[in-house]
């Protein structure tokens, strides 16, 4: 069971969480509490499948998914920043609304209830080349994944660069940490937050596409099964650092991939199903900042 195939599964499991998480990280750092990830992913996945069904093109489907995510974030922005609604209340009700909306549209457009499976739905192609597959470890990691997986990790790394090494990123951080001060020095706080909101929405939409068309090519109601909330948890837990976010989501993905394998060993199933979540609980005891202080102290000695 200890082959490296598990690495590929880890990547796949981590991708939607990392992608939605990274998008939301912009919101988080800019001081916006946007919790509509789950609904955004679900509706993004739905419209991607719907678009793929009608056009047969996965490229358009991806665009539809992203556009849906952006639209959701615009509604959120309108209700919170323009109308002044409470972010948590709006976020919560939008999650419930979008879940219902996906089922409602499924019924109205396709006269299906619950799931949409059809030959016409084109999935996002999985990239596998003989060359890549033959490289040990790296091949297991990258072969047979969709480009969304590659993009996700590139995006997360890029986010680190953007946040800490570019003027835009520093403005984002300033908006989150001290909006008044940022406004005083001429940073357009609302504009920055608006942009962050859009980035977050687009990323969530794409994460939804990865779930519905990346690994599968179908839509079932509620198919995100809480991955949006896990992503939200990962963002909070990583304290808004993209590199930590990568680590956390990979860890969760690995635990989930492991739990699939470990079940084959006939261990008690309740315990195994708990593994990914247990892993996260244990991880919360690891305090990154303390770790660093400790190493600094050791260096000082």
């Amino acid at each position, binding site marked *: 069971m200890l082959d490296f195939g598990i690495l590929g599964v880890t990547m796949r499991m981590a991708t939607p969480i990392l992608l939605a998480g990274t998008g939301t990280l912009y919101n988080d750092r800019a001081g916006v509490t946007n919790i509509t990830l789950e609904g955004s992913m679900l509706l993004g996945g739905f419209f991607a499948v719907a678009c793929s069904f009608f056009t047969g093109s996965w490229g358009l489907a991806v665009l539809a998914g992203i556009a849906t995510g952006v639209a959701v974030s615009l509604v959120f922005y*309108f209700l919170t920043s323009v109308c*002044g609604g409470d972010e948590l*209340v709006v976020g919560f*009700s939008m999650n419930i609304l979008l879940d*219902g*909306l996906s*089922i409602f549209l499924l019924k109205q457009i396709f006269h299906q209830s619950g*799931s949409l499976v059809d030959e016409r739905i084109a999935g996002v192609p999985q990239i596998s080349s003989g060359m890549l597959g033959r490289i040990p470890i790296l091949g297991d990691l990258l072969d047979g994944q969709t480009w969304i997986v590659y993009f996700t990790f590139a995006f997360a790394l890029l986010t680190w660069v953007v946040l800490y090494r570019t003027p835009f990123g520093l403005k984002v951080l300033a908006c989150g940490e001290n909006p008044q001060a940022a406004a005083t020095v001429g940073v357009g706080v609302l504009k920055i937050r608006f942009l962050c909101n859009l980035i977050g929405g687009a990323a969530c939409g794409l994460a939804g596409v990865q779930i519905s068309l990346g690994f599968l090519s179908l839509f079932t109601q509620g198919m995100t099964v809480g991955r949006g909330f896990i992503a939200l948890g990962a963002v909070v837990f990583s304290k808004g650092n993209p590199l930590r976010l990568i680590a956390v989501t990979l860890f969760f993905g690995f635990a989930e991939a492991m739990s699939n394998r470990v*079940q084959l060993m006939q261990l008690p199933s309740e315990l195994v199903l708990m593994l990914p979540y247990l892993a996260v609980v244990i991880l919360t005891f690891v305090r990154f900042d303390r770790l660093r202080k400790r190493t600094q102290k050791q260096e000082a000695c």
Partner: protein
Amino acid sequence: MRKTKKWLASGLVFVLAMALFAGCGKAGEEQGGRQKEQQEGQKEEQDAGEKKLKAAMITPQKLGDDGPIDACYAGLLAGAEEFGYEIKVLEPEAGEYEDSIRSMCDDGYNLIFCIFSQMQDAVSRIAPEYPDVMFVQVLGDLEMDNVKTINYKDQEASFLCGIAAAKMSKTGKVAVIAGAPVGDNVRNIAGFEAGAREADPDIQVTHLYVGSFEDPTKGKELANTLLDEGYDMILQVCASSSMGIREAIKERGENVCMIGNCVDESAAIPGQVPFSNFSDHKKTVYSTMKEFSEGKFEAGVVNWGLEEGMTKCIFAEDDVMEVPQEIKDLVAEYEQKIIDGTIVPPAELEGE
């Protein structure tokens, strides 16, 4: 400022209204204060001697699973047409079960189907409050004066599936992917594993849990794990999560097969579903509606199996996928043995 407030108010009202609309669009009946009024209305109606037939189906799992829920619904539709019921279907979320049952009772529905064991607690609390309403709990162990609890002896049909799977497997490895370790899933697993071992003592048989009935992603991931290990016959017992298993089986090609559950799934992946572990939810709902309309409804716990024809191992039509005649014969032989009582498939897993 005032303008902002206005926007805020209208925006929030809109969102909340839509959320209500979407969340319980079907449940959207008022209750509470109107309860008494309606009960009185109901009494008057009954006094007048007009007993309307109204059947409601409350299901925590959504329609469109291409499985048991859709089968129940088909039964409900057939029953409504045949016996003139007024029908309604609710799909409440966890936590809304009691409210949805109560709203149906208050609305004058006198036969209420509660699908699957999740509903059991809610039914046990509400049934005593409405002695005139008859409840049908599909899967469970409730014993109450106005509740009919219907269970299937799933292990009997899955035992037969196990036998057929063991005979058809080329690699000698067969498996079950179940939703969660709950009653009917466990019965299916136990029966299947016992059946497979009965047919071939050397067979390697295992079972995995998805941990959710609505997670096709994980379903596919688990199916791939099994297929990579060389398992070539997989019984699915996991509702919507099985959509992922279907995809995995289809992608892997001809040499691997899925065994359907609850309904005849042979058309889902032509040529790769040789037989299905069938339980007749449609007939269950239909026949209960029939009993009720004829006034023969009886409360109590019933267990239906092969003998009643409520569960069976159903083979694909020959033009969809041909299954060797000797396997069909063997299954028929064992079916007779189970009905005669010479073989009793286990309903529980050892050691769990």
